[in-house]
């Protein structure tokens, strides 16, 4: 009677599938991040100015800020229900490295809540009258930048997982952390508008992505071990 | 009546006075939406009834099994 455990790969896939399955059952988890993104973007013409020229000036920043907020807020659902029903404890007690389990959950989460935001961004960009030259820059920087936001957010969530209502505290912890991503993203767009090549900025964002892929799940895993305590 | 037709030829009609893309895309969108909106409920109804039938058959089978006592309940 000795336990033959599954490989870490199988557990990784099982966890990824499970989280995608849960998202599939709670469809609103998929729809809401990008609805939120749309709605927040709508607030700016209303709150600031509906004139196309003025909108165009702020469009890139608004897109990035809205994406940032959507990413932060969607994080809330990352470990919450698992914590509440005890699945998170089971994950901590599994014989596999927590790093991979956390990574699987992060990937599932970005696929479900980050990717739709990126995909819908050109539409909002049009509505906000973003200059034509900036489209590609906005889209690509968001594509590379939002996973970084998710990975960073995951640390914040892991740190606050036991708290009842953490929407705000999460934002307060992780928004400052994500400022570098925001800067890299909006600078890239600004500079491409001024004619600079996009690739350099994308490389910076890519480096941020690789770094956070390697390190953020470690930090999240450590944080989870502490907070589930 | 036909003298009121606003287009002199078929190609004129398709061209829509230079607005072909706009006009036809709206009408195409409408037709697609129209068709989907009628087709989907009809297909869905068939599907619902099929599932319902399957469920009834299953329920019947399990009732039979329980009555014949082949059920293992610990």
């Amino acid at each position, binding site marked *: 009677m000795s336990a033959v455990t599954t490989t870490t790969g199988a557990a990784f896939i099982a966890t990824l599938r499970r989280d995608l399955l849960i998202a599939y059952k709670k469809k609103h988890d998929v729809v809401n991040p990008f609805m939120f993104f749309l709605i927040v973007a709508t607030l700016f013409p209303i709150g600031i100015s509906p004139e196309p020229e003025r909108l165009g000036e702020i469009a890139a920043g608004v897109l990035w800020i809205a994406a940032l907020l959507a990413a932060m807020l969607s994080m809330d659902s990352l470990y919450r229900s698992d914590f509440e029903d005890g699945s998170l404890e089971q*994950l901590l007690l599994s014989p596999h490295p927590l790093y991979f389990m956390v990574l699987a959950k992060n990937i599932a989460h970005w696929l479900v809540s980050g990717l739709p935001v990126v995909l819908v961004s050109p539409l909002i960009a049009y509505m906000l009258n973003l200059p034509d030259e900036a489209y590609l820059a906005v889209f690509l920087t968001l594509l590379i930048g939002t996973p970084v936001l998710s990975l960073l957010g995951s640390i914040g969530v892991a740190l606050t997982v036991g708290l009842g209502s953490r929407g705000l505290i999460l934002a307060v912890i992780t928004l400052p952390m994500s400022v570098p991503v925001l800067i890299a993203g909006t600078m890239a767009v600004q500079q491409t508008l001024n004619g600079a090549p996009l690739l350099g900025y994308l490389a910076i964002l890519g480096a941020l992505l690789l770094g956070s892929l390697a390190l953020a799940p470690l930090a999240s895993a450590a944080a989870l071990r502490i907070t589930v305590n | 009546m036909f003298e009121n037709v606003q287009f002199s030829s078929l190609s004129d009609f398709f061209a829509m006075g230079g607005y072909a893309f706009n006009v036809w895309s709206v009408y195409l969108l409408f037709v697609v939406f129209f068709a989907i909106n009628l087709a989907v409920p009809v297909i869905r109804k068939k599907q619902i009834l099929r599932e319902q039938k399957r469920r009834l058959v299953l329920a019947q089978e399990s009732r039979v099994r329980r009555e014949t006592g082949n059920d293992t309940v610990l």
Partner: protein
Amino acid sequence: MSVATTAESESLANSKIPVLAARDLYCERDDRVLFQHLNFELNAGQVLQIQGSNGSGKTTLLRILCGLNDGYQGSIFWQGVEVTEQAEQFYADLLYIGHRVGVSKVLTPLENLRWSSTLQQRVDDAVIYQALCDVGLRGFEESQCFTLSAGQQQRVSLARLLISPARLWILDEPFTTLDTTGVDLLERLLQQHADKGGAVLVTTHHSLQVPDLQRLSLG
């Protein structure tokens, strides 16, 4: 406050080494000492019930043993070796069910068990169906768990006992919300597990009907 158990199970070769042993555990919370100099050994084939009044530290002890809580002093041994040195083997052989049973509310019992089994050892759906049937959830396999009653959710977690390969079970008040047939079922499961050479650590305020029961009292 300490118990040294001597009964031995014959079904295992390594039964001389206790499956789980604690040496000189000490824990305080909010400046109240919950336990100190706590020693015990749990051998293969044993069921050990942890007793104690409310707030005496049972849950805390179990979470410490599982590695979910590290606010303690002392050492914990798994088959003679410190747990921290062989976490992976330990976790491959551990099944913990706490106050929160680890059953996702949106998933169905089937989906829940599929996932939790894959973390340790994958099993066929047929096995899961059978396990769910055995714990009295026939017909609920595909209902989402939030539609189940408190006791039925508890039963989903009991089904894990049937499909997990783990040798050590650590169960925190598994009898709450179970009805009498559920209680009988669980007692039988504990018994069977011990007979097969497994080891069980369980807290409950209910008086367990298991032969050869060991007891450890806290507080």
